[in-house]
């Protein structure tokens, strides 16, 4: 409606169309920041007025609440991310919010600089978060799908402590070379193709590719128990290629 009514607002925004605000992925937000976007706005329908009964805007809200905590964790101002719910008739409100958000982001300054973060460090932090998104999505699956009716509870959905802990104590998976029998089960099931698997060779998880879904941990036969879930400590280096031949148990 702001277009049809010719309501003027600041020119910084670049809109991307999605069919439901709930389609906006946590990864999209951090990709935008990684690329140097200074602010991200997500617009959804008014809460409780979903025409399709899916109420995807609540999903968007949860995602934003989570993203803001993550932004705090890496030192970015959470005010660079904003979600608003309005109908297509709320043209005036849209124009106001666009101008207001534009002003806010200008006030905050260029991404990172405003927060006094070193560009290189910020980039590596954002890249790290991007890598952890599958892990975050899995860990917060229930909360991301919840429906908060009371705005007073928004702040508590994800707490600072909770997210700090989640990101501090990231779970990693490691294959114990002494136990792996190269059965290839884990490699076959890994959704990220992160397991280096050669016949009769001890398997190794490529930590760069691993999305920490834990599938390998689950499928590794109990009698081997080779996959370890570790958290809070560094992952041991992979066993050198020359020493990977499996010694079969008798």
């Amino acid at each position, binding site marked *: *409606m*702001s*277009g*049809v*009514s*010719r*309501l*003027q*607002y600041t*020119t910084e*925004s*670049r*809109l*991307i*169309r*999605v*069919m*439901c605000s*709930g*389609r*906006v*992925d*946590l*990864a*999209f937000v951090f*990709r*935008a920041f990684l*690329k*140097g*976007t200074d602010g991200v706005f997500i617009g959804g329908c008014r809460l409780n007025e979903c*025409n*399709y*009964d*899916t*109420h*995807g805007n609540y*999903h968007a809200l949860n*995602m934003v609440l989570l993203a803001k905590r993550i932004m705090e964790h890496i030192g970015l101002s959470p005010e660079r991310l904003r979600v608003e719910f309005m109908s297509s*008739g*709320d*043209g*005036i409100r849209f*124009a106001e919010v666009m101008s207001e958000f534009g002003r806010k982001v200008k006030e905050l300054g260029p991404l990172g600089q405003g927060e006094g973060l070193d560009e290189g460090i910020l980039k590596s932090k954002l890249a790290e978060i991007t890598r952890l*998104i*599958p*892990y975050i*999505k*899995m860990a917060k*699956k229930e909360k*991301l*799908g919840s429906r908060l009716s009371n705005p007073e509870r928004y702040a508590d959905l994800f707490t600072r402590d909770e997210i700090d802990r989640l990101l501090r104590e990231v779970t990693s998976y490691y294959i114990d070379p002494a136990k792996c029998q190269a059965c290839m089960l884990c490699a*076959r*099931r890994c*959704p*990220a193709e992160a397991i280096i698997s050669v016949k009769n060779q001890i398997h190794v998880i490529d930590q760069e590719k691993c*999305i920490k*879904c834990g*599938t390998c941990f689950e*499928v590794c036969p109990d009698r081997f128990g080779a996959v370890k879930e570790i958290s809070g400590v560094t992952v041991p280096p992979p066993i050198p290629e020359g020493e990977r031949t499996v010694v079969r148990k008798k």
Partner: protein
Amino acid sequence: MEGEAGDFQITLIKKPKYIDEDQCTGCTACVEYCPVKYPDPFNQEISQNKAIHIYFAQAIPLVTYIDDSCLYLKEKKCGICEGICKNHAIDFNQRAEKIEVKVGAVILAPGLEPYDPGLRHDYGYGQFANVVTSLDYERLMCATGPYQGEILRASDRKHPHKIAWIQCVGSRQVIPGGNSYCSGVCCTYAQKQVILTKEHDAEAECTIFHNDIRSYNKDFERFYQRTESLPGVRFIRSYVSIGREIPASKNVTIRYSTPDDGVKEEEFGLVVLSVGLNPPADYTALADKFGIELNAHGFCQTNPVDPMEATRPGIFVSGAFRGPTDIPESVFSASAAGSECGELLNYRRGKLTQARIYPPEKDVAQEEPRIGVFVCHCGANIGRIVDVPATVEYALSLPHVAYAQEQLFSCATNSAKEISDMTREKGLNRVVIAACSPRTLEPLFRDTLREAGINQYYLDMANIREHNSWVHSKEREESTRKAQDLIRMSVARARHLEPLQEFDLPVNKAGLVVGGGLAGMTAALSLANQGHEVYLVEKESDLGGMARRLHSTLEGLDVQQYLIDVVGKIYRHPLVHVYTEAAILETGGYVGNFATKVKSRGRVMEIKHGATLLATGAEEYRPTEYLYGEDERVVTNLELEEQIAGRDERLVGARSLVMIQCVGCRNAERNYCSRVCCSHSIKNALNLKALNPQMDIYILFRDMRTYGYYEDYYREAAGKEVRFIRYEPTDPPEVEPAVGEEGLGVLRVTVTDPILGKRLEIDADVVALAAAVIPSAGSQEAARLFKVNSNPDGFFKEAHVKLRPVDFVADGIYLCGMAHYPKFITETLSQAYAAAGRALTLLSHDTVVASGSVCEVNERKCIGCGACISACSYGAIEFRETRQGKKAVVNPVICKGDGLCNAKCPTGAISLKHHTDEEILSQIDAAVQP
């Protein structure tokens, strides 16, 4: 109009718009330059509009028209618009056009006229600046209204702080110029206005002066409570009169009285008159033209058992011309009228349709992307702000762009042809159109791509008008840059676009109707009359449902006789298959292709059907209050109706009878109004008065909710000395056995009369309880089996209250009757026809088209975590066991393409086609200047 049902000749006069509708693109450049201003009829003449303008923002077609205030039309002066319009759409030589059409049936949907309080000089409307009607106020609140959504007073253009609503203006009034009926919608619309007012200004003080509050519709009781609980909102039950206008402030006073404080006069900044609904203007001329009869109120006379049918065969009505109607009922009466026309004209179905032939689609999936960019000037709308030639140049510099050009209006027929010609000529395999919102024209341009022989999903639109030139109209440089950025993003996305197929699924032509009450039977007959096989499933041994317990209606229908007729039609219809004493064992499938196992009288059979209608009805609440079940003189309304029909001697001989309303609902446990009980009690009271005029009848009520024409019967009952006593829910009546004056056993009913302010004792021979209507056990069972939703009260939840009132969210499943909400027979029949009409839109086609933009799973990446399944509210995703564990699988027919699952999937295994991660990420990347 001449002729008869099935063969009418109609002559239409089309007034000149002075606009060539095929040429006008709705760009409104002409409006900007038009020098003539006159009061805007759409905005209640509060603000001004131009002589050339679009009637309102969402008008269809979205083209301008020239009003007779135009200088050229009046004095052959001006003509500026002609010079401005780059598409030569202005045509001052247009004359009224006579059009002859031949049709088989007519649907009249002329709507309503708001009551005009100015006519009687009541309420100071037209005299005091700050007295407005509710429709004036509606426009004031609206973003496209006279003050862009600011609520301003006419006297000083200031925000009113203290606002009063006066209910029943023109309704429930038996005075010359008033309407005796209740308009049915005003209580709730006034509450909506209060809520919106509080959203505009949280400090606003809102007062509603009312008689009864008639929140009789689904979820309206809760809406009323929500309004009432807002701070600064008062509901005052009182008759009122307008006092005077305060000369300095132009505030208006209202006189009213309350039982506690007596008569008071209070000042308000703005007074809103909740005006009722009148028949459409010129209704008598309309009736004459079509040869139909009107009822006493000037609305269309309809048949109570065929509520869309006017008195002349072949003429149907929908919407408020049938009488005061709210939006959901308007919408479903429209579907219902459609189904009735279908019954009449079924033998000619499809005879006028023509299949569109497209050139064969070229497979370009393996080619390198060759993107064509078309930048639209939209007349002056874009071109005046955005430097279009420079933008075309810029587009050509982008990777994979093989061609770019500007166009005056991309949507014009010749431009669309140009796009498809250039696509073919330059061997383009992706098209980006930089123009307006895809909301309006994406379907047109997809069609253009099909004409060009490439897949329609190879299109992307960059919105450089609504998102750019229109909203940054003073910043030429910035908006040129933004246009280029938006095009760069579109081009980046276009690279990744994939050809998608919309696939056709065969539709099984049969319908399954669950529930053999009036709703189910009526829907079944309407489907069968249009040539569809229908399976009607009823759990009882006889058809008829709740109607078996009803004997008459207020309008005088003999329900039992009618029921016999309908049941007879059902059993005689060769296409209707009835299963009684039946239970549904299991059901599955999807739109157009369902399969349901039914067990009936010991036999189990599988029914294949394309559509499902749930009409599982409702039940009467069994009261635990007021000695019900302990004392046989306490009966429910339905039991009372049985006794009246059976001329029960003890009942007819009763000296005194008390009816208690709202038993078992409008309370914490059932927070809704059962809608039918007030009128049901009045019907019983009138029938009893006819049998025994001496009987003293008392109706103890909270609000009398005799909406619409039922108000007339309420008045009739009052006229026949049925005594109405209001009670407060906090101080409900009490019933106890006692010994009456003559030493006879009576039921002593004690109630506080708020008007007299004292406890009354009434000795009654019979007490009738208006017991709530509650959802049936069958509905709950059906909700579980068919995986459809219910509202908090247990009634079926429609896909959208207003937009899709008889559909479930799941495609191919429809609802009607009391399972949706309590309703009268006439309303049930309307809704049953509506559900049949909706089902027909599916069953009358050989195939359903499933969108190409749906989700799919890459099984290699799926870890079976189920995040997608819990995100999908359509139930489109299921697990499937594989050797690699369980994997999600999408049923593309059920998927609606919202992509919630995509956003939840941790591994990127599930992907929404046409809005993939890759496509959206490429736009995000391209948003920042490289």
